[in-house]
């Protein structure tokens, strides 16, 4: 397994470099360093001298990939790509183009993102699996029909609608929780309650149907028939046999996103005023802050690769037949 892990980590290096290169190329295809300088200097009274000064101060005056003016290795190292990217691998995120320390901001914003994302994942998983199991248990009855129709209806509604209706009904009409905001400590609970509930409810439609499909596939297999023949109750069959065997496809979808929870939710954080990574990303894109964008993409890539490795490892836990060699 160690060999496998080392191999996977080595594979990750070209992937991370490639994604970094791709992001860099894409960003600079849309924005020139002059554009970035103008975005930061404002729209009024900006002169060429100021732009040149800004670029020099932020290393945007360097060539993108190859510095013909330099000799030897410096041709590659004294470039914008190298200067802006190489430090990422040492987790030195540097300063944003707006002048804030990115590492400090990331550390500060991860917790609020997790405060929403972790309960949503856990509660969502619990709710969706429960509903899916009930639908499987009541398969062929009116209960399944009604639940399926409701799931399809819930799938068809956009998340934004859930947010607006949730805020209007729960926070404005019923006045049960604050409409938006965030706080530290226990007080944060009343801010995260509504976004968590809305996220869980918004995810029920698609996830419950997906899990039901997995359970239905399992329920007609021989081992289930054997378990029933042994006289096990349906609850035990479902929980101890069907659920366990359905874990592989469920884990494939779940474990990979666990590390990405750090990156937060763009829509939820924006509407609920949660100062997390999602809103950080949106702000960085709108402010054309390349320094932040590349850090977010870098972190996203790393976390995704980490998630894939975790997924592989989790297979060992749920399926003894799997060997990672």
């Amino acid at each position, binding site marked *: 397994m160690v060999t496998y892990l080392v191999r996977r980590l080595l594979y990750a290096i070209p992937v991370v470099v490639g994604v970094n290169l791709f992001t860099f190329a894409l960003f600079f295809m849309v*924005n020139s360093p002059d*554009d970035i300088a*103008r975005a*930061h*200097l*404002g*729209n*009024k*009274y*900006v*002169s*060429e*001298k*100021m732009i040149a*000064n800004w670029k020099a*101060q932020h290393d945007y005056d360097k060539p993108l990939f190859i510095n013909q003016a330099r000799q030897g290795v410096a041709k590659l190292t004294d470039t914008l790509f190298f200067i802006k990217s190489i430090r990422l691998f040492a987790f030195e995120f540097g*300063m944003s183009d*707006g*002048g*804030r*320390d990115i590492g*400090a*901001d990331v550390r*500060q*914003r991860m917790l609020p993102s997790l405060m929403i994302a972790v309960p949503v994942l856990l509660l969502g998983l619990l709710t969706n699996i429960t509903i899916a199991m*009930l639908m499987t*248990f*009541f398969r062929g009855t009116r209960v399944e029909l009604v639940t399926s129709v409701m799931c399809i209806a819930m799938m068809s509604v956009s998340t934004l609608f859930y947010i*607006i209706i949730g*805020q209007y009904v729960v*926070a*404005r*009409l*019923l*006045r*049960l*929780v*604050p*409409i*938006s905001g*965030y*706080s530290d400590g*226990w*007080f*944060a*609970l*009343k*801010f995260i309650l509504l976004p968590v509930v809305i996220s869980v409810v918004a995810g029920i439609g698609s996830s419950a149907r997906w899990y039901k499909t997995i359970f239905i596939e399992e329920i007609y297999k021989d081992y289930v028939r054997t378990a029933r023949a042994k006289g096990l*109750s*349906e*609850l*035990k069959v479902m929980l101890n046999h069907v659920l366990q065997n359905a874990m592989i496809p469920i884990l494939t979808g779940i474990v990979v996103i666990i590390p990405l929870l750090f990156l937060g939710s763009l829509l939820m954080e*924006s*509407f*609920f*005023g949660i*100062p997390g990574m999602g809103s*950080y990303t949106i*702000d960085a894109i709108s*402010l054309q802050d390349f320094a932040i964008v590349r850090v977010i993409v870098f972190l996203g890539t790393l976390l995704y690769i980490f998630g894939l490795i975790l997924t592989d490892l989790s297979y060992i836990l749920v399926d003894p037949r799997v060997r990672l060699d």
Partner: protein
Amino acid sequence: MDRANQSTVFSLCRNVRFWLTAIAVALLVACDGRAWNNPYPKSDRDDGVIVDYASFDSPPKTLDPARSYSAPEAMFNAQIYEPPLQYHFLKRPYQLEPLTLVAMPTVERFAKNGELVQSNEREVVETRYTMTLKPGIFYQPHPAFAKAGAAYLYHHLSRKQVDGISGLADFTTVGSRELTAADYVYQIKRLAHPDVQSPIFSFMANIINGLDEFHDQLQQVKAELKQTNSSQGFIDLRQYQVTGVKVLDRYRYQITIKGDYRQFIYWLAMPFFAPMPWEADQFYSQPGMRQKNMVLDWYPIGTGPYMLAENNPNRRIILERNPYYHEDLFPATGEANDEANGFLKNKAKSLPMIDRIVYTLEKESLPRWNKFLQGYYDNSGISSDSFDQAIAIDHHGNPQLTDELKQKQVRLYTSVEPSIFYLGFNMKDKVVGGDGERTRKLRQAISIAVDYDEYIHIFLNGRGVAAQGPIPPGIFGYQSGQQGINPIVYQWRQHQLQHRSLTDAKRLLAEAGYPAGKDKLTNKPLVLTYDIATNGGPEQYAQIAWMRKQFAKLGIQLLVNATHWNRFQDRIRRGRSQLFFMGWNADYPDPENFFFLLYGPNGKVEHGGENASNYNNPVFDQLFRQMRSMPNDNKRLAVIEKMLAIVRQDAPWVWGLHPKTFLLSHKWNDPVKQSSIINGTLKYYSLDPVQRSLARRQWNTPIKWPLYLVGMLLLSLVLYAANAYRKRERKMVKRR
């Protein structure tokens, strides 16, 4: 059910009960016995202090007064920093008055031979402003001023010491000192500092004597420091001199500017010219401070009525009363109706009247609006989403509050912004530009066809005024009624402004050589390109469709080039556009700040200036030079009228609109006169926290029965499922 299953179900039930109890307890702790939806923690409550609750929709990019140049930043900076001058809070048109000065600056103009110029007859080559400060003004408490004897406590911190600090609150000792003239001079030098990147440096380099040379000198100093590998980030600007900026003594300083730029005095009311103590620069330049985000961008040091108590631009910003704020009183006089409108309720009272302002980051308009309705924000603007909930238009077309807001006794204030949004023609373009009769008539025809009254009605819910020229209402030179109309687009009939008919536009178009929108020579339809910066929002697509429709009225085909802001700017800069949509927000309340957008030597393509249309009319330029150095009197008005007549005739812009701001204020706020030019207004605000507290309690009693209903519904579902399960289990047994 067998015993094993029963025990599983009971265990589940026990767990559910435990978690429900735990959640209920946690919620009770979080709710703290107050309204459940109160978003403010206990620490923010107004126990004994008066707190104002406000919001901001985007984090400020910087609070450094030398760099900050946007409204969201001015909202904070103008309360913290004190430039030498301010606008009188109540008088209109706007009047400058001393803020930290004992009197208005003395202004001396000099001719080429160095003689003092007394009248407008001689050419002025240099103007000198001398400012005298009030003694006894002190800075807010700050660790940069902390001393042990004569030595500064925190000016030579090691990297290790800085690493152990997470914010300014970690510095146990703070200090203060008296404001001196040298601090104002220091800040002007900062405008030219290459590392500061002040947005007005290039502009001021052409105004203030020696500022450009000073910038070059600092560049050289920086390069030398780099060569010697000096790690010292602090360049002590006191050691270098700007020829046009001098400290005369402890309380007096002097600025000498090139020529006769009379609008310079307005700049002295902006935070760019606020004082900066050298101690702040030295303190924040220490290694490791930037990595902690402890920089002037985020931790300002001022002498103003408020100081920054908490700066978390990702969540909230808190301002608190500056304990060392100097004596400042609410104006005792205002305009004729100010007393009747309640704007003088606090006259002669000591400022500021509010102790703390809590700004919460609120990116979306709907939550912000709902919180205002619940009383958690004291004031609110009105977004398009909530316009119908707030405003009903009466039979006369006037905006009125809806019944819901009337019941809450909310006040509505409206004011026209000192801004203009316009449709510009690139005067360098062969088809629409130039000063020929043909292209002028084409521009005039388009000016009539594009109906901005309709635009205001459709897209702004009536929140705008159709522009008659570049000058917005409230700025000297703007005239309402018949005198102020643009006769090319409007006519005055039966005491009313009336848009000219499309027939007039079509006639002009035919005279321009495009009858029915087709080129008379080639018989091909006239196709024009319209550049607009877009954010991709659905409303913008509707606006683009509307614009196409305006041109279609004349048979002109409009190709729309909707791009992102960078590309849009690039096309304007290179003169590649034909028609474009743009706006301008006034820096100061003077017509010069709008006319200069049409001044030839400010042309975007040739000079990189702000004249995006590249309009160039020598007669207009001559009048502009004359007008900008005149005082606001009838003579100046006459010149302005001539200038307006020229630009209306030439029509380099379809004049567009001046946006109107609607502000809603809760009953517990004292009436406040609105101003779009004055930013440092918070010190004039006052409110009744008891009344607010009562209203909040009344408006936010939680409705709990749906909670019980949902709980019962869930319980019923669980019971139903359990029952169904039990029946099914039994059924299976029977079958076996």
